[in-house]
C-alpha cells in the first residue's frame, strides 16, 4: 500500500482491523487550516521526493511497530493541491493497548515532519504563495 497519494485520503481502510487482537486504534489526521501565523490561507500544495518519501515513510511505520510493540502503523500523505479542510496526512495505529498507541502515533508524526522529503506550499487569500520553512535533514551538507 503506497504511502503517498494524489487522491483524497480514505480513512475507512485505515481504521479497519486485521483481526481482534487489538484493543486500541488511534487515528491522527492533519487538515488544511484557514489561517497560519495570522495569514488567511485558501489552500495548500504538497510535493515530494516521492521515491525517498515512500521509503522513509515505510521505515517510520516499521520502526513504530517494532519500538512501540504495536500491531500496525499506517501513514498516508496526500500530494498535490488541497482545499481548506482536506486531509494532508493520516496516521493510523492499531495496538493491543492504548499507551503504546498514543506514544507510537505521536512519535510517527514527529518523525514524518523531521525526516520525510515532502514540501508544503501555502496559498494565501491575497494570491500570494509561500513554501513553508521546515526541518533540515540530518545529512544536510
Amino acid at each position, binding site marked *: 500500500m503506497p504511502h503517498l497519494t494524489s487522491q483524497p485520503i480514505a480513512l475507512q481502510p485505515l481504521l479497519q482491523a486485521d483481526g481482534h487482537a487489538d484493543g486500541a486504534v488511534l487515528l491522527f489526521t492533519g487538515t488544511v487550516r484557514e489561517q497560519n501565523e495570522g495569514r488567511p490561507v485558501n489552500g495548500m500544495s504538497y510535493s515530494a*521526493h516521492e521515491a525517498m518519501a515512500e521509503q522513509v515513510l515505510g521505515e517510520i511505520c516499521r520502526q513504530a511497530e517494532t519500538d512501540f510493540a504495536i500491531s500496525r502503523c499506517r501513514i498516508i500523505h496526500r500530494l498535490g493541491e488541497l482545499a481548506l479542510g482536506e486531509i*494532508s496526512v493520516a496516521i493510523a495505529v492499531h495496538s493491543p493497548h492504548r499507551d503504546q498507541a498514543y506514544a507510537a502515533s505521536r512519535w510517527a508524526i514527529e518523525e514524518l*515532519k523531521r525526516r520525510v522529503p*515532502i514540501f508544503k506550499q501555502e496559498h494565501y487569500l491575497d494570491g500570494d504563495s509561500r513554501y*513553508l520553512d*521546515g526541518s533540515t535533514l540530518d*545529512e*544536510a551538507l
Partner: protein
Amino acid sequence: MKLQLRPYGPLIPVLGEGPLAVEAPVHTAGELLDWLHGQYPDLAPWRRRIACGMGASLLGADAALTDQAEIALIPPVSGG
C-alpha cells in the same frame, strides 16, 4: 563531471523545475553543494540546509559522485 540536478520544493523557484544539466569540477556531494552555492547566490538562505540524494538514499558530504548521476537537492522538509 556532468550531473543532472533535481531540485525540490522551495529550490524550484531558484533553480527551475529541473532536471538541471551541469558540468561541475567536483567529486563529492559536499563539493557539489559548495560549487552550487557559488554559482547561485540566491541559494544563500539554504546554506548548510540542503541534503543531496541519489535514488531513495541520502548522500553524506564525502559521498563520491559518478559522472551522469542524477542528484536530488533536498531543502528542509515540511510535510504533515
